[in-house]
Every structure is written in C-alpha cells, then in structure tokens.
C-alpha cells in the first residue's frame, strides 16, 4: 500500500510542458526560475520552444508579445516547486535569464545575454553585444562571445575563453582565468584567488589585473607596446623574457616599458607573485615559482630570499 502511494506521489511530480510560440525578430526572452535549471539552445526557426519538467502543482506560463517572450511558473498552492526548463530560441534572440537556486546554461547564442543566479552556475557558449553573467555561489564560465562582457561571482571562479571585446571579471573568493582573449580593455579583480590572462595586448589598450592574496600570470605577446606598472606588497615579480625596469623602483612598485609603451597594463598583487610570459607559455608554466627568475640586476633581492624560504 505504501509503495503504491509513493509511486503515485512520484508520478505527480514529474509533469512535462511543451509549448512553441512564434516570435518576431527583435523580441527577447525573459525567464525567471526560482529553483531548477534554465538551459537555452538555439535553432533556425523564428519560434521559441519551451519544454519544462515540473510538479503537477505548477503550471508553466509562456506569455508572448511582440517584444518579449516571458516564461515563468505559477503554483496552484504555495510557492512554485523546482522547474527544469529547456528552451530553444532563434540564435539572435536576446536573453534575460534569472533565478535563485538555478543553474543556467546557454549554447549557441548570437544575441545579448543577461544571466543571474545566486546559488547556481552560469555556463554560456556564445553571446554577442552586452553579455552579463552573475552568480554568488557558483562558477561563471563563458566562451565564444564578443562584445561587452561583464562576469561576476562572489565565491567561485570565473573562466572565459575565446572572447573578443571589452571584458570585466570580478570575484572575491575565486580564480579568474581569461584565455584566448582579444581585447583592448580587460579588467580582472579578485581578493582571494589567482588571475590568469592569456590574450592580446593591443596598442592603446588598458588592462588591469589585481588580487589581494593570489598570483597574477599575464601574457605579453612579442612586439607588444605596453607600459607595465607593477605594485605589490609582499610578492615577487618575474618574467619569461628579458625586461628592463625603468624609472624609479621601490621594492613594491615599479614600471617597465616594452616597445613604445602604448598600452597600459596595471598589475597589482598584495600578497602574491606576478609573472609575465609569452602567450601560450603560461599554461605550461606551472612550476614557475621554483624556477630561476629573470631579474633586473638592480632589483633588491632581500625579499626574494624570504619568499623562497616560505614556499612549499
């Protein structure tokens, strides 16, 4: 008897909705899902297909007007239960996806994307124009996007690859990795984590990478023109290639000029090391801390020796 009831209860929770609505070019998708998944894929039809798994107490509302397709769930009694959405949209459709206990994935988008969650990951492949991805407790991952990119997490990592455009990444307790990036304007900042930037340094560009407790590893392509300013309290600086420190230098702060110095690169790490390498070398450069460092002969080395003793 009990098993029968349990089975019936199980059946009651697993309901499927499948709706397709036509859309006009220029319309956008808005999905709000308190808990569950939002997975967006693309196709070449001018229509939006919403499939969802949810409890029988909830019904899915797809409200389509000329400008926006809104998807959300409504419960007959009490708050909505968990809903897992799988939505297929035209590639150019702009996406506004939000939730609290929600994992968000997007694949193949060629439109603007805003995705926000609190307890959940955001994983996007694609995006053109304004792309803004946020989580509090969850990784944020982006690839193959171009435009103005804004990535933010609090307690987890940010990873971006194959990006072109302006990029800004911020987290508190996590690493930031920006690879295969083509940008004139990139900023990554964390408190407790490492920053890796393997991308272009373009003439006239502005780049800023900062951490409090972590390492910075930044690629500088050959024939770059960049003024590099390095600030650290208790960290070391090193480079995979010969560098010339110019101007006044203190233990904590110095500049170096590469080529004409056209671009500006600001590197700040309070308590961690800063290393410059060529593109593609950084990923292989895992044990760099143990290697010999290339120092400008005039640099004060006292700090290095203390640092070496502390290293594992």
């Amino acid at each position, binding site marked *: 008897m009990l098993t029968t009831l349990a089975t019936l209860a199980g059946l009651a929770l697993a309901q499927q909705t499948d709706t397709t609505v036509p859309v006009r070019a220029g319309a956008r998708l808005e999905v709000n899902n308190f808990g569950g998944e939002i997975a967006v894929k693309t196709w070449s039809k001018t229509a939006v297909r919403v499939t969802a798994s949810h409890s029988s107490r909830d019904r899915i509302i797809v409200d389509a007007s000329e*400008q926006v397709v809104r998807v959300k769930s409504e419960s007959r009694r009490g708050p909505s239960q968990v809903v897992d959405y799988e939505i297929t949209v035209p590639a150019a459709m*702009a996406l*506004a996806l939000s939730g609290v206990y929600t994992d968000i994935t997007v694949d193949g988008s060629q439109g*603007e994307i805003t995705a926000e969650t609190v307890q959940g990951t955001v994983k996007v492949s694609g995006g053109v124009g304004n792309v*803004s991805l946020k989580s509090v407790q969850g990784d944020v991952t982006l690839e193959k996007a171009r435009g103005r990119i804004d990535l933010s997490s609090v307690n987890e990592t940010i990873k971006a690859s194959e990006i072109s455009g302006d990029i800004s990444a911020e987290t508190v307790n996590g690493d930031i990795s920006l690879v295969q990036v083509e940008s004139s304007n990139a900023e990554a900042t964390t408190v407790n984590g490492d920053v890796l930037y393997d991308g272009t340094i373009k003439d006239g560009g502005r780049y800023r990478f900062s951490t409090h407790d972590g390492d910075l590893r930044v690629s500088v392509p050959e024939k770059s023109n960049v003024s590099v300013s390095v600030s650290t309290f208790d960290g070391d600086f090193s480079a995979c290639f010969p560098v010339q420190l110019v101007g006044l230098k203190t233990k904590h702060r110095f500049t170096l000029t590469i080529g004409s110095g056209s671009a500006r690169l600001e590197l700040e790490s309070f308590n961690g090391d800063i290393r410059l390498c060529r593109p593609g070398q950084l990923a292989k450069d895992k044990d760099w801390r143990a290697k010999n460092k290339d120092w400008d002969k005039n640099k004060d080395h006292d700090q290095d020796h203390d640092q070496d003793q502390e290293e594992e």
Partner: protein
Amino acid sequence: MDAEAADVALAQSGDGRAFERLYRTHVPRIHGLVRRMISTGEPEDVTQDVFVRAWEKLHTFRGEAAFGTWLHRLAVNVILAKRKTLGGERRRFGEDSGEMLERVAGREREPEHGIDFEEALRRLPDGARQVFILHDVQGYRHEEIAKLLGVVPGTSKSQLHHARMALRRNLER
C-alpha cells in the same frame, strides 16, 4: 577656457569655493532628476550624496564632455545604486509592473484623469518612470539606459512606450 571649465579645474585642485559655484549652477537640474527618479528615500539626501560623490570622483573628469553631462551621468549612477539598497530591484521589471502599467494605460474613465503630469509621473511603476525620465527628459539612448538599469534594450523600449501611453491623459495640467 570658459568660466565653468576654470571652476572645474580649480575644484579639481581642491578649491572648495569653485566647487560650490559648480554646485549652485547644477543643483536645480540634478535635484529635479533625483526627485523624479527615486520612489523611496529623501530627495535632498540623495542630491547631497550626488555632490559629495562628484567631489570624490572629480579627478576622473577629463573634460572630454561638458561637466554637466558628466555630473548627470554620475547622478544617475548614484540614484540607481541607492535603489539596490532599498530593495525591490528584481521586481521592477517583473510581471507585476507590467500588469500595473497595462491597467493604467488602458483605463478610460479614471479619477487619475484629474491629476497633473508630475503626479502621474510619480505614480508610474519604478522601472517605467526611470526609463521615461532617462530617455525623454534626460536624453539617454536605449542602449545606455539598458546598461544603467541592467536590462536589455528591448525592455527599455517597451517600458518607455508604456510610460508614454500611460501619461497621455495627464497632459493638460
């Protein structure tokens, strides 16, 4: 170098009297913007915060645009940052405000007929009011408004249209 540019340069080097002159020139417009954009909190406090922040950020003004333009943008940022601490951000553009707007725009015979334009503006839902102010009063474009308010430009356009439709009936006063 005109008088205002001179005052900006002086203020940037720490001259408080120059900054006061800038304040006096710009406070009417800034205060008007603040009064209309916010729905909770005290406009005078917010206006004060705008100018304090302008002082703090003065060194970032590079003279590429007019000082008033820079100050306006800063004011919009201060106003929008405040709404985040006062809560309700997620609901501004949600289902609720959409329904409310459609009801307001659709009504034919309504006591609101008799209220004046500014009061009707005040009664709009936050999102629609802010888009209307930023676009039709302040002259921002939809792309800029979208970035400021954290929405896609399409939302900005539809909210603007809804606001305008709702305000049609209160033009006479």
